[in-house]
């Protein structure tokens, strides 16, 4: 063995905070994602309803406009918790379609191409990888769900004096309900993307989780004569959670605790699926 010169000097400069490194993944991915015209068009379409709602809130409190149109204030739909509850349901549905479009491309390419060692041979953990991929979708979902929801809430607060003081809990319901829904969608999309490599099949599976789950849940309810089959229908589950958060007076078909339990189990299954696939090497069995 030759005697080598010892000239190695490691990097000694400052480092960015460890917590922020997950943001590197979406940064590169957004550039690629927004090359899709369909995605851009769909994202724009997702803002039609919030913009319509904003216009409605403004108009419904604009007495000059109402009198010009010969409309009495009482004839307009009330902007209250139910208004925001419906907004959450509508935008939550739009979020499902966005998830089906974006979700399949999150992890599948890395799994298919054995790219995981590229990430994990850097100071970057599996949790940071999942969080980074999740943040990509979560940011998009947030942009069409709770962020416009809170903007509408602020518009309503600005046009009706004293409304905010009595209805501040609505803001919590908008954020809490939609954020829980967004995280659930992200976890399902990540788990399916980690296991199904073919993009169209993965997108179809994401939709099937929501739509076939509803049918399967109804079948279970009919056969076993129970209501708990509805726990397989994630749209029903989130509807119960929205009802609880928006303080609906009508009793939901399922108990809120059962709905929360169903979401927790769904999240655990997704995390387990991710744990099996997001690793630096293929397990030989």
């Amino acid at each position, binding site marked *: 063995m030759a005697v080598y010169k010892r000239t190695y000097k*490691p990097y000694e400069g*400052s480092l960015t905070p460890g917590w922020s*490194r997950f943001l*590197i993944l979406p940064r*590169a991915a957004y550039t690629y994602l927004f090359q899709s015209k369909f995605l851009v068009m769909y994202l724009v379409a997702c803002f039609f309803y919030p913009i319509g709602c904003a216009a409605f809130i403004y108009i419904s409190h604009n007495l000059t406009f109402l009198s010009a149109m010969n409309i009495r204030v009482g004839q307009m739909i009330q902007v209250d918790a139910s208004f925001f509850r419906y907004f959450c349901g509508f935008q939550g549905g739009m979020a499902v379609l966005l998830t089906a479009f974006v979700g399949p491309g999150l992890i599948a390419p890395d799994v298919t191409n054995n790219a995981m*060692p590229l990430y*994990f041979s*850097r100071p970057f953990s599996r949790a940071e990888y999942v969080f980074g991929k999740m943040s990509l979708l979560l940011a998009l979902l947030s942009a069409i769900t709770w962020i416009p929801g809170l903007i509408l809430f602020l518009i309503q607060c600005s046009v009706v004096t004293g409304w905010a003081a009595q209805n501040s809990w609505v803001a919590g319901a908008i954020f809490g309900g939609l954020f829980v829904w967004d995280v659930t969608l992200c976890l399902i999309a990540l788990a399916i993307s980690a296991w199904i490599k073919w993009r169209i099949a993965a997108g179809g599976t994401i939709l099937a989780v929501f739509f076939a789950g509803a049918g399967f849940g109804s079948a279970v309810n009919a056969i076993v004569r129970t209501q708990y089959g509805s726990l397989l229908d994630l749209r029903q589950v989130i509807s119960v959670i929205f009802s609880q958060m928006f303080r609906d007076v009508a009793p939901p078909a399922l108990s809120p605790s059962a709905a929360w339990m169903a979401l927790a189990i769904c999240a655990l299954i997704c995390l387990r699926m991710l744990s099996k696939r997001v690793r*630096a090497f293929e397990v030989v069995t």
Partner: protein
Amino acid sequence: MSANGGRVTFDNVSRFYGEVLGVNRVTLSIPPGITSLVGPNGSGKTTLMNLMSGLVHPTRGQIRVLDIPPTDPERLCRVLGYSTQFDSFPRGLTGHQLVFSFLRLFGYDEVTCNRLAGAAIERLRMTEAADRKVAAYSKGMRQRIKLAMAIAHDPQVLVLDEPLNGLDPLVRAETITLFRELAAQGRHVIVSSHVLHEVDQISDQVILLSNGYVVAEGQIQGVRGEIQEHPMQVLIRSSRCSALASKLFEFDHVVEARLVEAGSAVLIKTRDADRFYHALNHLALNGIDIEGVAPADDTVNSVYEYLIGEEGSR
């Protein structure tokens, strides 16, 4: 720093994937310089590399990379650069963006990442292609951009899985020169290969693997001397090869005598070189015509064949 602080050490390391053996009872101490892991497919080369990179944790035993345990990835990944054998990159990125993005995972600021990425790309002579999409790269260019990613953060230990695979002869020569430069700077350059000719050219030492076991380690000549229980090969040219083979086979230290080169030579495998040459002299003096004698096992190929068998030599 301990006595092994400047080495990559494996202490009785085993790794099983369920019931499947990855590597078993590996004890190694790898010094700076170029070290080659050689073995056929499934011999455990990649598992060994994954173990020292912290991507796989050992089922048993201890690993230290410059005294850093692989369970401390924050420290380990800063001194270690890993290039996988797979061609896989996130979509849509150019060469520079790729090296830059993965440098950002180390926590360096943008200016530093740009500088380091540019330097690594230039070192691999990829500057002209740096702004092209990786998806449009040739196989050789992909290999080089992977190497750029591995060396970009200036690691002290480089672990490179099949790094010369797919390179044309010119780039291969340049890459080997790069390995030598890195090794001369006191770094560990650990490469895997199943192309044995490459190992001959570039290695300071080799580690031969078969079926998850280290069957030999050390300098190529040293490996040969270390395994005295394995026969040495000698090629003898003679006009009476059949008679020579028959006579030699009578000696108990000769384990194989095979006619090769269309019967114009005999390949002998012997366990005792001294006794063999003494016997050969005796035969020559007794009228067996011998045209030439040459050792046939000074290359890694023959050592490899001895140790691993026919599977390894293919």
